[in-house]
């Protein structure tokens, strides 16, 4: 995607309105078909052999018309400080987007896009579910020029900046070996398999059961050939078959994960040029997303068990352009999908040079935190033991063995948690088996909440939620649990005072 240096002349900046690429309607149609693919498939297959096929054709025809209408009504006008987009036929809309308000620029090229030498451009501002502008599609050189224009905030004169950018060495690239590790660690294949299971279950035919049965028969045949007759009856044969099935499934899922990782992250490059980060990736479908460094709202460094085995970590960021759902994977998220712990620290140090990430003074949580963590699990263990004892008598009391296990686990978790605050950066680390470090620059915190449950009050602790923009709606990354009450109050007061003094810098 980055072969050609962006040529500002390819973009029509003559004060006139322009249409998108003449083939735009095709890509709009493909995008719409993707949304309607399930109903269409149902129409095609459910109504097999009768006249209902016609309805499917009619639906596609209507979509073609809609796509053509979108192409003929969508116009854009480039100005010195922003872009104006006029669209719609019955429901018309006019949108002014100042370059200064754009947080993310995404260029996306699927295989079809690459075939026709075009690209899809998304301009995202802070907040909102949909991108501010979705230009489907522009000629590739125009798309690159538009990206460069947004980067320079609309001053077309400084053409040299783009060329410099290409010359700057990438901050991180991933070799195929790293991609294989990423696939093994991330286990993306599991999602696909789960989705496939769901689809098969919906299909109603017993495809899945049939597959398992065939597989079992095949394996049983092999096993009995190996062990001789009567293998069908022996527990060993059964166990071997079952275990081999599970192992084969696990290996297949991991292989799928590796394949997916290579598809998504092949040719991963992280670059930075004049304060702008850009990430480029993809084997068949290429995409490039970029955002200014100071637009990053929060950071998250993860290390799971598998990460630890491979001595790797992964680094993600939140930008304020909070795209959700299907578009989420296009926004700038994975700064380093996989990298050595040292490289991750270097990257953080590079992007936050003054924040002192390497020299944070980590504070432990409240001394009694382990008790607070253990109590829900303890209650469950005691209830379960009670139920077992009631049903099975004395042997049920073995459930009490869960109690020391739970206490030990809670101790480890409490020991792993910690918080740090040095006036520039506020950080929270958590997790014992899978560790996470979440941190944000203090100025990026938008609101604070100190909370105490009755149990917290009894133990003299409190939780502090530091909310940032663009965080995931599921679970807050900077939720500092089980802090000593005085420390939580002091941190809350200090941050509140600091935030009130500083203006919000997006």
């Amino acid at each position, binding site marked *: 995607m980055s072969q050609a240096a962006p040529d500002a002349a390819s973009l029509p900046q003559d004060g006139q309105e322009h249409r998108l690429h003449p083939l735009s309607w095709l890509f709009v149609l493909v995008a719409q078909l993707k949304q309607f693919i399930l109903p269409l498939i149902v129409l095609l297959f459910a109504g097999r052999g009768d006249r209902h096929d016609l309805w499917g054709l009619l639906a596609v025809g209507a979509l073609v018309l809609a796509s053509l209408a979108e192409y003929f009504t969508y116009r854009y006008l480039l100005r010195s400080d922003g872009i104006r987009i006029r669209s719609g036929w019955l429901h018309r809309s006019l949108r002014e987007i100042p370059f200064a308000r754009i947080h993310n620029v995404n260029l996306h090229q699927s295989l079809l896009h690459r075939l026709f030498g075009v690209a899809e451009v998304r301009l995202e501002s802070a907040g909102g579910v949909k991108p501010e502008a979705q230009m489907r599609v522009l000629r590739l050189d125009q798309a690159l020029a538009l990206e460069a224009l947004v980067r320079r905030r609309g001053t077309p004169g400084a053409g040299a900046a783009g060329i410099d950018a290409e010359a700057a060495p990438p901050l991180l690239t991933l070799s195929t070996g790293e991609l294989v590790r990423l696939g093994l660690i991330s286990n993306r294949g599991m999602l696909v398999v789960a989705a496939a299971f769901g689809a098969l279950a919906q299909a109603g035919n017993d495809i899945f059961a049939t597959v398992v049965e065939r597989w079992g028969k095949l394996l049983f045949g092999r096993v009995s050939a190996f062990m001789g007759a009567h293998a069908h009856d022996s527990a060993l044969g059964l166990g071997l078959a079952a275990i081999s099935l599970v192992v084969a499934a696990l290996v297949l899922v991991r292989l799928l994960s590796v394949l997916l990782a290579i598809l998504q992250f092949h040719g991963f490059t992280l670059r930075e040029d004049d304060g702008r980060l850009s990430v480029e990736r993809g084997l068949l479908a290429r995409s490039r997303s970029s955002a200014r460094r100071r637009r990053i709202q929060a950071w998250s460094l993860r290390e799971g068990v598998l990460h630890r085995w491979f001595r790797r970590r992964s680094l993600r960021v939140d930008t304020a352009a909070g795209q959700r759902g299907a578009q989420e994977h296009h926004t700038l998220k994975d700064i380093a999908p996989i990298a050595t712990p040292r490289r991750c620290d270097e990257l953080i140090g590079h992007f936050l040079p003054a924040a002192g990430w390497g020299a944070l003074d980590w504070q432990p949580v409240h001394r009694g935190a382990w008790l607070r963590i253990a109590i829900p699990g303890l209650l469950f263990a005691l209830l379960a033991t009670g139920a077992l004892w009631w049903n099975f008598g004395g042997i049920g009391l073995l459930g009490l063995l869960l109690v020391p296990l739970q206490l030990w686990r809670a101790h480890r978790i409490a020991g792993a948690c910690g918080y740090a605050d040095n006036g520039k950066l506020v950080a929270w680390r958590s997790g014992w088996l899978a560790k996470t470090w979440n941190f944000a620059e203090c100025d990026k915190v938008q609101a604070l*909440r100190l909370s105490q449950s009755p149990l917290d009050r009894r133990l003299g602790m409190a939780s502090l939620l530091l909310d940032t923009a663009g965080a995931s709606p599921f679970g807050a990354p900077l939720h500092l649990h089980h802090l000593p009450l005085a420390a939580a109050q002091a941190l809350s007061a200090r941050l*509140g005072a600091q935030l009130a003094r500083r203006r919000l810098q997006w």
Partner: protein
Amino acid sequence: MTSTEFDAAQASAPAAQPPTVETWHAPPARAVRLHAGFLAAIFGVCGLGAMIGPLLAMDDHRATRIGVAFALLLLGPSLGGWIGARLRHQRWKLDAEGLWLRTGRLWWRETRVPASRVQHVDLKHGPLERRFRLATLVVHTAAVHLSGITVRGLDEGDAQRLRDALARQLDDAGDAL
């Protein structure tokens, strides 16, 4: 604090200073009563609505039916009233740093929105609230979980002043296009 005290404090403040009164404000008693009564009614209606079918379907056990119905009529509204009356623990404060809001007693929470992080402010008056000269103020931030901080049961005058003060700080920040 009553609204007259608030006015007195306003008047005594120098004109150049932003109108911040750095004390905790409790909701007026009528706001708590309204909130508790409203939730009690809602819970009562919902509880009866959910149980009316099963109650009618039971053919015999006339005494049990009446007992259950009475228990519902008693329990639903009292639960609603208890939840609604939690509003009496709410305290708010506006100072130079921004808006503070404390809610709850057992599950205690203190939310703080720095004035520089307020995106916009909504003032809402429902029909019942209008009748009792009350208002609800929603302070919006760019955060994800604390995106809308709701201050319920404000006296109308207090709500106006609070909104104006927050809006003035917004203007001073001047992040507009």
